């Protein structure tokens, strides 16, 4: 079923290969940015993918890009389709789809705050959402190290020390080696 939908859309929107590896009823497909809106509209209005399950990002820092994942659900046929969109990591500006799904505005607010991906035109997108008084880089980016940040902000309780059995045993058994 997914294949049929894909075949209908593939050529018109220059979709990437259909990735159906994970489970039945779920597929992912790569999408080019200029086709995002037409594909989403078509999927929603024609193919019955009326439900936006989630919109999130993956930071592929080694490739210098963000992957935006739009996960849609066709409730009638029980299909989940994930659209993967590449964004340049250094120029992270996405396209808002809050007019297609109002609920996307919330997701976009979160992406703005947590990944620093801008969505111009999305309602209240620049308001603080989850964090308050955050001044560091967006925390979900891969180069943000949460442990390092935490240790530089909140000190650990003192008096804890651990030993590595490998080193410790050498010290005991072969103090001179």
């Amino acid at each position: 079923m997914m294949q049929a939908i894909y075949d209908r859309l593939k050529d018109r929107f220059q979709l990437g290969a259909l990735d159906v590896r994970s489970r039945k009823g779920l597929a992912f497909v790569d999408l080019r940015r200029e086709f995002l809106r037409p594909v989403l509209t078509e999927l929603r209005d024609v193919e019955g993918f009326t439900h936006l399950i989630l919109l999130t990002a993956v930071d592929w820092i080694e490739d210098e890009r963000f992957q935006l994942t739009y996960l849609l659900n066709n409730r009638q046929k029980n299909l989940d389709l994930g659209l993967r969109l590449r964004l340049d990591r250094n120029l992270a500006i996405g396209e808002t789809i809050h007019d297609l799904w109002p609920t996307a505005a919330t997701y976009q607010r979160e992406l703005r705050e947590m990944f620093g991906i801008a969505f111009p035109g999305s309602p209240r997108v620049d308001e603080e959402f989850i964090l308050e008084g955050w001044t560091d880089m967006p925390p979900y980016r891969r180069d943000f190290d949460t442990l390092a940040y935490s240790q530089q902000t909140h000190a650990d309780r003192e008096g804890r020390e651990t030993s590595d059995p490998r080193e410790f045993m050498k010290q005991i058994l072969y103090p001179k080696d």
Partner: protein
Amino acid sequence: MSFKDVLSPFTAWKHVLETPVTIKDPLTREAADRYRGFHKNDIELCIGCSSCEAICQNAAIDMVPVKDPKEGDSGLRPQIDYGRCCWCALCVDICMTGSLTMSNEYIWFDEDPDAFRFIPGVDAKSWDSSEKGYRREGGRRLSGTERVEMREMEPDLRIGNFDEIVAGYDRAEAVLEADRCVECGLCVATCPAHMDIPDYIKTIREGDYEHGLELLYNSNPFSEVCGRVCTHNCETACAARHEGDPIAIRWLKRHITDQVPYDRYVDIVGKPDLAKTGQKIAIIGAGPGGLTAAFDLARMGHAVTVYEEKEKPGGMMRYGIPEYRLPYESLDRDIGVIEAMGVKIKCGVRIGKDISMEKLKADNDAVVLAIGLHLGRSTRVPGSESPDVEKAVELLRRITAGEEVPVPKKVVVIGGGNVAMDIARSMARLQKQRHGEVGITVTALESFDHFLADEEEVVESREEGIEILDSRGPQEVITVKSGKNKGKVKGLRTWRVDSIFDEKGRFNPHYDEGDEMVHDGEMVIEAIGQVSDVSLLGEKLTEALEWNRGRVKIDHDGRTSEPWLWAAGDCVKGPDVINAVADGHRVAQSINQVLVAMREAKA
């Protein structure tokens, strides 16, 4: 909205007469049997492997030293910080020995936030005796318990020849086996050479064999050899041993050497691009100890010459270990790498005869004595002076050298160590070739509970048709008293051993004389230990040196009482390849320090 809707809510009032469901005394209420409460640790069982620390995603566990650690553990015990713990019990699930458990106690309060830390089993707590609480069901599930079977040649195929028995792991098997490692590192300290075992096992999982080989050569130039015949002390310390088989560390090491093409070895091991120091070192004996020292010293830029009495280098590895366990070509490959580092090996040169010790001393900045243990010991029981009574090391040497050895149909071996197994199995092969059948009896002093030889050796020997008897003390080699064959051996008389050591721990066997056995055989082989041939030292040096129970006395670094002379390997530490390798490293390190100091003094 009906009238009923107005009235029906009032039915709730019927509850006013019921007894409240409140728990009368909630403070003493016991949690469920499976409840995950505070931790307990069976301190006797725990080996301090730190798997619990590794799996704890809250960094709640510290490994802290405890007083009086028992033998074979790391001396560390987990300390739990209840300012971190989330009671997920992953630590219990991963625990390699099953020592860490949970009680079903759950009440702990304090006004001091630093108080919520304790070492289960060491710091006494009210729940230590609690019987209930979380236990993992069944065996360990979070890391495998069973060793991947090593494929071996079938007994009937292998018995007639000296081909190598084990096949080695293929990639899939090795990865599966390597996957079981929990990277605790107990093995590292147990290994005399402190090989980075968890690290090289990790390279197998990651498929980075070249790095693995590099790690092997960092601490052991005889990786091919050790991958086959190492006594693997590491496996006796392996954390996985407690609730399953230990990791097959030796086979994994071999797997790495198998996977890397030999022509890449020297590149990977790397020839350090050091300026030559011009300092010279002579090493006597091309066994594992001597060659390891040579390898290290050559890599430090010294000129090293190794003098070997026999035709080929390798020492006991070549002349003591039969080929079906250690093919000569493996040994040759290891030695080849060592030679590629610039080590000169002169074979067929006997010190004391061809070159004198004095000359060596004069020509070199340092001399290493690594002569091994090449003379067999005798039981000195009546009849043991008979010509048909052979010594195992001697016989093994002759087999390797290709000399003709007598192969009677029935052979009795005295001894229960690995050398006994080696000679028994070698003789069995010769018997098979010569007579088509095996007739070997091994009589060991020790009982099977305290057997000296490796278990797999025993198993394989039995598979090959060798009879092994435990707790037999040799009393007399029975010879033919008269007739044509007078003086020929016809068997061995043994008594059952009650105890080997007396209460002071000295060797003093007690026998049950009522349980006497006679083992038929036309040849008796003594495999009860070896000694060094120290005659090459010469009288003067022998007197100058300090001795310790027949062996040259050395300090921790392998230095003898003579400042120019170091000693390493079997001749000072007893027979063991990996110990000899460790010795070699130590000696090399020590020599280098001295030489550097000499250089600096000169400059």
